[in-house]
């Protein structure tokens, strides 16, 4: 499932996928895969992304449908 919350949080900070990838020390393709829902990141990567985007885990990665 696509992670649109993460995408919009990133866009709100005017960050490209490459910028976010460099900030959390992963490849751009990994950020792309997370946003497209093709990859489930580990908790450590989730926390890193939340820290950079200034959001909580629930705000970015909680699935309302579960």
């Amino acid at each position, binding site marked *: 499932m696509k992670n649109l919350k993460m995408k919009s949080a990133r866009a709100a900070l005017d960050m490209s996928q490459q910028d976010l990838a460099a900030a959390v*020390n992963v*490849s751009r393709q990994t950020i792309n895969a997370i946003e497209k829902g093709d*990859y489930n*990141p580990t908790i450590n990567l989730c926390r890193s992304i939340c820290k950079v985007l200034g959001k909580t885990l629930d705000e970015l990665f909680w699935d309302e449908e579960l």
Partner: protein
Amino acid sequence: MMHKGKILISLLALICLCFFVTGCGEKTDEREDLSLEQAQVAVSVTDGVAAPKGSVYSLSVAEDGGYTFYINCKPDKEGILTGCVVYDEEDWPVFCCTGEEMQVESQNIELKAGTYRVEFCYLTNQNDVVAFLKNGWVKPDKIDPYTFSKNGDFNIHLEYGLEKSQKHSMYYYLGVICGFLFAFLIIMLVRWGILKTGGRIDLRCKADSYDERQQLARGIAYKRAFFALLFYIAVVSALSEMDISIFMSFAGMWLGVCIALLVFVITCIVHDAYMSLYENAKGVTMLISSVGVLNILCGFEYLTGEKPILEDGVIAANCVNLMVGITFLIIVVVFVGRLRYNKKQWEEDGE
């Protein structure tokens, strides 16, 4: 660091130049035309005789040293097995071989000066074959005595001889070392060229070179490559059992390695897990292209047909360079194709 690198490269170049010059002192001993003794034998073999027909010849060894035996045998028709045993002056066998039609070159054997007796034995029935093989200490590999015809007249052309094994001088071994150093120099120059033009490559394989998603994908790639290699070995073994031994050679082994490498790399590329976090596309493309082109150049004579790819029914050993070159060029094509695909996706996503 760059200053040290330049010093290193200069030193290596100087060392290689010195060895190259001394290596020129190694005269390439042109192998003299090997002259073998020849004999034409007409033999009538009968099933069940107590002592099979045979013929005896002699070879002289002038001085102690390492020698190579050459035994060639060509009968005019199928159905006869020729055994050959070479005895020294004390009647100890020093070499033996068997075959229907054979061209045998022995390994290096240490011989003393003297006269050696070459005995050929002509066998057709099962008892003869088994008896000879027991005395000659030769494993009866793929010899089915039941297929041999019995009671026949055969004309057999024999050739036999020996040659003193060539020994290399010190310059030869220095030349080998020079070759390895030269290869290292080429690697350093390629790396320097890549870094100079803005490329980034990372050969350290550190734990943090790849992110978690890439590591997962690489794990899958390793598994697929492993099973691809296993499958290749199984196929080659099955083909060998059917007497198709084209891949049973040094080059055949490397073909399996190249196939496994291709599976691993293509899986990584497709999952965007080939390039590490410390590399860029330019550096990786230049590195892979360099390896491919250099190996293609080394194996160019096989590409143009100047040298045959098959030697004695198996892939020639020196074809490895061509194989590796083609493998790396395929990798370049797939890698560049993936880069273009990613770029297109990126543009469509508005990034």
